[in-house]
C-alpha cells in the first residue's frame, strides 16, 4: 500500500496587485506557509511521497530569496518530493529550475523531474512525469505514458500539468492538452494533475488537486490537497481532500434598494474575520444615512479582514428629506444639494454623487459649529 499527498499550482512568488501593500504581502507570505503546512501534513500522515503537479513557481525570474524560501518550506517532510514544471515555470534552457540548481537550494529528497523519463520512487512505485519544457506546449506530453515500462508489480503513477480535453475545454487547440482517459489508456493506477486551481475529480483514477491556498476570486473549491491511498497495483485509489487553505476568498455583489438591504450587508460585514479575502461590488441606491452606515461597516470590516476590496461606483445616492434636514443645508447650500440629487439622473451621475457625498461630509463636519451658532 502506498499513500501520496497530491498537490499542485503553488504559484510561489505571485504578487496580488489588487490589494493594499500589507494585504498583498500577507497573501504572498501565505503561499510559503501553506507549503510548510503540506510538509507538516505529509510528515504527520507519513506519506510515501508528495507529488506537486506543476506551476510550483508563478514566474521564472522570482528572486533568489523566494527560491530558497520555497525549498526551505519543504524541510518539514524528509520523504521524497516529486515536482514537475508547469506552464508558468516550464523547464526552458534557462529556467527557475536551473537557477535553483545553481543556488544549491534543492535538498536531496526533492526531485525536480525535468525530463519525461519514468523513475522508481523509493522502490515503491513508478512515477511517469510529463514536465513542460517549452514556453508554449501544444502537444499532449502524456502520450509516451502508455509505452513506458516500469518495474513489475509496482503501481504506475502519472504526474502531469495541463487541460483534460473535452472535459475542461472544448477547444482542441488549447495549450497543454491531456487526453481524457489517459489513466486507463496508459494503465496508470493514478494520474495526478495540475493547472486547474480547484479540487476536481475527472475519473476514478484522475484528479486535479487544485491550489492548496486559494489565489483568486472564482469560486472553485480550492485551498485543498489530496491524500491518495492505493492498496496495491491495480486497485482503485482512495482519495481524501484535506483542507489546507488559510484564507477564504469571496466575491459579493449586493443589490441595495431599501434600508433593510443595507442592514443585511452591514450584518454580513460584521461577521467578516481575519481569514476573509473579500470583494464587494454594490449596485442599486441608498440614502445618505445608509451610505454612512455602510461606510462605517466597511471601515470596520477592512480592519478585520485579511483584505477587502470595495467597489461602490454603481451605487446611487438618494438622500431622503430626513437626510437633508439632518444636514441643516438651507439657503443656497440646500439648493445646491437638491440640484446634485437631480443630476444623478443625468449623464454624469457619478460626478453628482461624489459631489453630493462631499457636500454631506463637509456639512456634517461643520454640523456642531452650526447648531451652536443658532439657525
Amino acid at each position, binding site marked *: 500500500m502506498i499513500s501520496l499527498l497530491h498537490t499542485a499550482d503553488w504559484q510561489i*512568488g*505571485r*504578487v*496580488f*496587485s*489588487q490589494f*493594499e*501593500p500589507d494585504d*498583498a504581502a500577507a497573501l504572498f507570505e501565505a503561499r510559503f506557509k501553506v507549503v510548510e503546512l503540506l510538509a507538516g501534513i505529509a510528515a504527520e500522515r507519513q506519506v510515501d511521497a508528495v507529488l506537486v503537479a506543476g506551476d510550483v513557481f*508563478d*514566474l*521564472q*525570474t*522570482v*528572486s*533568489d*530569496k*523566494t527560491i530558497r524560501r520555497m525549498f526551505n518550506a519543504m524541510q518539514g517532510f524528509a520523504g521524497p518530493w516529486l515536482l514537475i514544471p508547469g506552464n508558468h515555470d516550464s523547464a*526552458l*534552457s*534557462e*529556467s*527557475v529550475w536551473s*537557477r535553483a540548481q*545553481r543556488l544549491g537550494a534543492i535538498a536531496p529528497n526533492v526531485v525536480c523531474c525535468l525530463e519525461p523519463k519514468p523513475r522508481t520512487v523509493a522502490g515503491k512505485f513508478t512515477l511517469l512525469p510529463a514536465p513542460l519544457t517549452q*514556453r508554449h506546449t501544444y502537444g499532449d506530453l502524456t502520450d509516451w505514458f502508455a509505452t513506458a515500462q516500469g518495474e513489475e508489480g509496482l503501481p504506475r503513477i502519472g504526474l502531469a500539468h495541463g487541460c483534460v480535453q473535452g472535459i475542461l475545454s472544448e477547444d482542441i487547440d488549447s495549450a497543454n492538452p491531456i487526453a481524457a482517459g489517459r489513466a486507463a489508456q496508459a494503465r496508470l493506477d493514478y494520474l495526478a494533475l495540475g493547472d486547474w486551481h480547484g479540487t476536481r475529480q475527472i475519473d476514478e483514477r484522475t484528479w486535479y488537486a487544485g491550489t492548496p491556498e486559494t489565489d483568486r476570486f472564482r469560486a472553485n473549491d480550492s485551498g485543498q490537497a489530496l491524500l491518495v491511498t492505493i492498496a496495491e497495483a491495480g486497485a482503485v485509489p482512495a482519495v481524501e481532500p484535506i483542507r489546507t487553505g488559510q484564507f477564504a476568498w469571496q466575491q459579493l455583489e449586493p443589490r441595495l434598494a431599501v434600508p433593510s438591504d443595507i442592514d443585511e450587508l452591514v450584518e454580513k460585514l460584521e461577521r467578516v474575520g481575519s481569514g476573509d479575502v473579500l470583494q464587494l461590488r454594490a449596485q442599486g441606491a441608498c440614502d445618505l444615512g445608509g451610505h454612512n452606515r455602510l461606510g462605517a461597516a466597511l471601515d470596520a470590516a477592512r480592519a478585520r479582514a485579511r483584505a477587502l476590496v470595495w467597489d461602490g461606483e454603481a451605487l446611487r445616492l438618494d438622500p431622503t428629506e430626513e437626510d437633508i434636514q439632518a444636514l441643516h443645508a438651507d*439657503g*443656497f*447650500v440646500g*439648493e*445646491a444639494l437638491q*440640484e*446634485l440629487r437631480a443630476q444623478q439622473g443625468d449623464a454624469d451621475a*457619478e*460626478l*453628482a454623487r*461624489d*459631489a453630493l*457625498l*462631499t*457636500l454631506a461630509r*463637509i*456639512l456634517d*463636519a*461643520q454640523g456642531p*459649529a*452650526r447648531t451652536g*451658532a443658532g439657525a
Partner: protein
Amino acid sequence: MKLQRLRIENFKLFRAPLEIDGFTDGLNLFAAPNESGKSTVAEAIRAAFFERHRSSAVEHLRPWGESSVTPTVELDFELDGKPCRLTKAFLGKKRCELVIDGKAMDGAVAEDHLAALLGFRFPGKGASTPEHMGIPGLLWIKQGTSHDIAGAVGFASDHLRNALGESLGELASSHGDAVLKAVESERNELLTPSAGTPRGAFADAIRLRTDLEAELERLHADIEAYRSGVDRLSGLRRDHQRDEAARPWAALREQLVVAQQRLDEAKGLNDRKNAQDAVLKQVAAQVNSWRTQLQAMEREEATVVLRQRNLQAVHEGLAKALGELQAWEPRHAAAAQADAAARENLRAARQAASRIAQERAVESLAEQLAALVQSHEKARSEQDKVSRLQAEAQALAVPEGELKQLQRCADALRTAQARLDAVATALEFELQPAARVRVAGIELSGSKRQTVIARTDIEIEGIGRITVLPGGADLESLAIERDRARDEIAALLQSLRAESVAAVEERVRLQALRKGEAGAAEAVLAALAPKGLSALAADIAMREARLAQARQVLQNMAPAPAAGAAVPSSAQAESEESAARAALEAASAALNDAKIAAGNAREQVRAAGDELAAVKATLDDPMRASRKVEAGAALTDALAQQSALQDKVAELAQQLQTVNLPVLAQDVERLERSARQAEATHSQRANEITRLEVELETRGALGQEEAASEKQRELEHAARRCTELERRAKALDHLLKLLREKRSALARRLRAPLQKHLDHYLQILFPGAQVEVGDDLSPGRITRQGLRGAQSGDFAELSVGAREQMGVVARLAYADLLKEASKPTLLILDDALVNTDEERLRQMKRVLYDAAARHQILIFSCHPDVWRDLGVVARNIP
C-alpha cells in the same frame, strides 16, 4: 422723518440765534453764498443727533473766541407722524431734552432712544465718527463726500440688510459661506485656483503613477530581453548538440583529401606536357637554322650573275657622266665672259648718268641764287620805302589830343558864332546900286545880311551914321567866348604849324595814308624776306658757297663721252648685267653637278668590280660543297624528330583537357574553407553558449519578473489613488461651481428690491444703463449705452462727476428701501453736485424731484441760479 423748525444759538458763526422754520415736506432749497453758514446749519443738525450732550469733544461748535457759551440746537420734527422736539445744549449748560408726542425724555436715555429710532449709535467716548453714524451718516451727505459711498454704505449695511429682509449672516457671514470656504480650500488643495490643474497630493500621485509606468515598462523590456535570451540559448544548445553528433567538418575533410589527390594528379600531367613543349621548341629551332643555312648557300650562287650585270651597267653610267662634263665646260667659259662685258657696260652708263646729274645740280643752284639776289634787291628797296613812308608819317603826325581839341574848339567857335549870330542883331541890307553904305568901315553893296554884336556904325553916305547898339548882355560874353575860341584855334594851328583845321585834318589823313603805305611796304618786305634782310643776305652767301662747291665737283668729274657714242641707259645696263650674272651662275652650277656625277660613277664602277671579285672568291672555296651536303642531312633528321614530338604533345594536351585543372583547384579551396568554417562556427557557438549562460544566470538572479509583479502592484495602487484623487477633485470642483452659482442667484434675488429702486433712478440719469449691486450693497459694475455701444466699468472707474451723481442716486435708492422698511429717511445734500455739468444736473433735478415725493430733502447750494428750475423757491440763511 420731516424736519419742521430749526433754531441754533451760540453755534459757530451764529452767535445770535438763528431760526429757520417753514420746512416743507419734499424739497427744501437753501441757496446762500460761501461763508454764510449753510454748512453750519447742516453741521448743527448733525451735532444735535450724533454728539452726546455730555461730550467734551465738541469745542469746535463754540463760536470762535467764546469760551464759555453754550452752543444750543433745537429741532422740531415729525417722526412716524408724531411731533417731536429735540433740544440739545453742549459744553456750558449741558442739556438734552426729547419730547415725542408729549412724552418727555432727557439725557442719555433720550439720546439712545433717538439713535435707535433713526438707526445710528454713539461712540464710547470722544467725537462721533462715520462708523457710528449709520443711516443718517449715509443719507446726510457732507460736503464733498457724495462720490464716496462704499464706506457709508458699509456703516449702514446692517440696517440695509435688515430692510432687505436678509437675516444676519445669511449671505455675508452665514454658514453657507463657511461651507463654500471649506469646499474651496479642499478643492484648492488638489487643483490650482485659476487653471484647475492638478497640484499638491493629486499632482504627486499623477507623477508617481507616471514614474511607475515608466519603470514597469523598463522592467518589462528587460524581462522580454531575458526571455528571448533563454529562447536563443535553447536554439543554440540544440544546434550545438546536433553538430556535435553530426560532425559535418569531418566529412568535409575527407572530401578535401580526395580532391587534393586528384588535383595533384592533374598537376603532374600538366608538368609533363610543359616539358615536352619545351623540347619541341628546341627541335623546331634547329630545323629552322639548318634550313636557313642551305637557303643562304643557294642564294650566293645566284648572286654572281647579278654582280656581272651590275658592273656593266655602272660602266655605261660612267661614260655618260664624262660626256656631260665635257659639254658643260665651254659653256661655262662663255657665260663668264659675257658677264664681265655686261659689268663694264654698266659702269660706263652709270658714270655718264652721274655727270649729267651734277650739271643739272649746278644749274639749279645758280638759278636759285639769282632769284634770291633779286629778292634781296627788292627787299632792300622796300625797306627804304618803308623808312621813307614812316618818316613822312611821323612828320605829318598830329598828336591825337590836339586834333581833338582843335576840333572841339572849332565846334565851340561855330557854336559861339551861331549863338552870337542868333542873339546878335541882324542887319539886312538891300541896297540900291547907287547906295553907299559902310558898316563898321566896310562898304557894302547888293543884298546882304549881317549880324552885329557890338556897337556898329553904319554909315550911309549922304545920310549920316546909324549906330547899332545890339542889346543883350550875353552878347559881350558870347563875343568873348567866340573870340576866345578863335584865339585858341589860332594858337593851336600855330603850334601845329598848320593853316587851318581842315589842313590839320588833311595832315592827319595823309599821315594815315602814309602809315598805310608804310604798312603795305612792310608786308611786301616781310614776304620777300621773312626772316629779315640780313638773314636773306646770309642765305645768299651760303648758296653762293654751295654753288662754287658744286662747280668744283663737276670739274673734277670725268669728261663727257664723245657725242654720238651710244651710251646705254643705266637701267638697261643693269638689267643686262644681272641677266649675265644669272646665266653665269647657272652654268657654274651645272658644271659642278656634272663633275660630281662623274666622280660618283667612277666610284660605283670600282665598287661593282670589287663585289664581283669577292663573290667569285667565295664560290671558289673547296670546303663549300661538303658543307652543303652536311646541312641537308641534318635538316632531314631534325624534321623527323619534330614530327614525333608533336604527336606526343598533342596526346598529352588531349588528356589534360578532360581533367580541367582550374576547377579541381577550386574544389580543394572550397572544401578547405568549408571545413574550416564549420569548425570555427562550432567553437564560436560553444563560446556564445557559455557567454549566454553566464549572462542569463546573472540576469535571472535579479528576480526581475517578481520585481515587475511587485512594481505592477505598486502601479495599480498608485493608479487607484490617482483615480480616487481625481474623482475627489472633480467632485469638489463641481460642488464649488454649483455652490457659487447658487449663492450668486440667491444674492441677486435678495437684493432685488434694492436693485429695483436703483434701476428706477438710473433710468432717469443714464437711460438704458444697468448697475450691479455688490456684496457690500454699494454700487458695483455699471454698464451704460455709450456712443460706441455698451461700456462696462467698475463704480470706482467713473469720473468724479459721474460718481457724485451715482452717489446721490444710490442714496435715494437706499432711502426708498429704508422707507419701505419704515425707517426715517431725511436726506441732506450739502453742495453735493459741484462736479456735475449742466446736462447731467438737469437729469439730477428730475431725479430729486421724483424722490422728493417720498422723502424730505434739504439741498444746500451756493449756486441758486442753477436750481431755479427745481420747482421750489430758494431760501436764504437769515
